[in-house]
């Protein structure tokens, strides 16, 4: 009895903190709403390990996430398309930046005001001589 409990706890411990957190909260779970892929890890790397996540590598990873999400019939999480658009913008690729901002707005109308502001700025920049 004691050793079974010990083994269970050891397994939980090895599986990591997230499992432990479920124990505290009470075990009720549901299906995730989104396919998360690399999005949060990229944000962590760009701030905590500067130089390890340049716009080019971010674009590559986030595009991969978008492809996996759509092939599995899942949604990209809030902010991913806008973040990808911003990385395109930093690369100087305004065309794809605008497409990604539009994708964010279509998926999440709550983003409209912010995305419209970013889009307007990019279009103004293009219009300048």
């Amino acid at each position, binding site marked *: 009895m004691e050793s079974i409990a010990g083994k269970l*706890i050891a397994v939980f411990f090895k599986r990591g903190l997230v499992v432990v957190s479920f124990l505290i909260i009470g075990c009720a779970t549901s299906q995730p709403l989104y396919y998360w892929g690399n999005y949060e890890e990229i944000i962590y790397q760009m701030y905590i390990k500067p130089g390890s996540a340049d716009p080019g590598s971010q674009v590559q990873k986030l595009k991969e996430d978008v492809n996996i999400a759509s092939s599995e019939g899942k949604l990209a999480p809030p902010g991913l398309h806008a973040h990808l658009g911003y990385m395109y913008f930093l690369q100087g690729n305004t065309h794809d930046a605008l497409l990604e901002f539009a994708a964010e707005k279509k998926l999440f109308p709550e983003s409209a005001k912010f995305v419209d502001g970013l889009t307007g700025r990019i279009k103004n920049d293009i219009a300048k001589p």
Partner: protein
Amino acid sequence: MTSLSRNFKLLLPVLLLNISGCTTTPPFDYASFRQHRPRSILVLPPLNQTTDVDAPYTYLSTITRPLAECGYYVFPVAVVDAYMKENGLPSAEEMHGVALDKIRNIIGADAVLYVTIEEWGQKYVVIQSITTIKAKAQLIDTASGEVIWQGTQAVSQGSGGGGDPIAMLITAAVAQIINTMVDYTHDLSRVAHYGMIYNTEQGFLAGPYLPPQENDHCRPPQ
């Protein structure tokens, strides 16, 4: 080592986490939350009262997922941060000072989550090292300025325990080095967010992208 002490050692992290989560508090008043029911949340980079310069952005890089899985639209944290920096707000302090109507008009957020980090990182206590995260947060409605939710989240993760003191001392020192290398706070900040948002008595009410939930709270996804 006896089976009992081994079990105790394994249990220790769980116990520590439980202690921090079990303080008795009066029932949370959700009246304002229910009245305003935000669809979208802007999380600003947290204020940092610790000496760990990585704390605010480690926190920020792990907060989107639990909030979004609770049903909210979460603005892209890094894009908003860059946007504010480009517009003359280089620090979290200055970002926290932006008027709510400006945030509402320019970003369109229904609510802003203001976070202050109070403790972050490792303490070396006799023969064990303890990683602690403590942060207080307020969710404020941008239209009315009302605080619609607030809470303090504290979590600890310990390593070490009973047994041979010298062996334990070495183990604790090694664990501390390893923990420093893997940035233990990165995982622990996820635990802190889960505890804050998915707490069934003090946590967030479910957002618009979740189907109707039992008792209106969101649940951690699988």
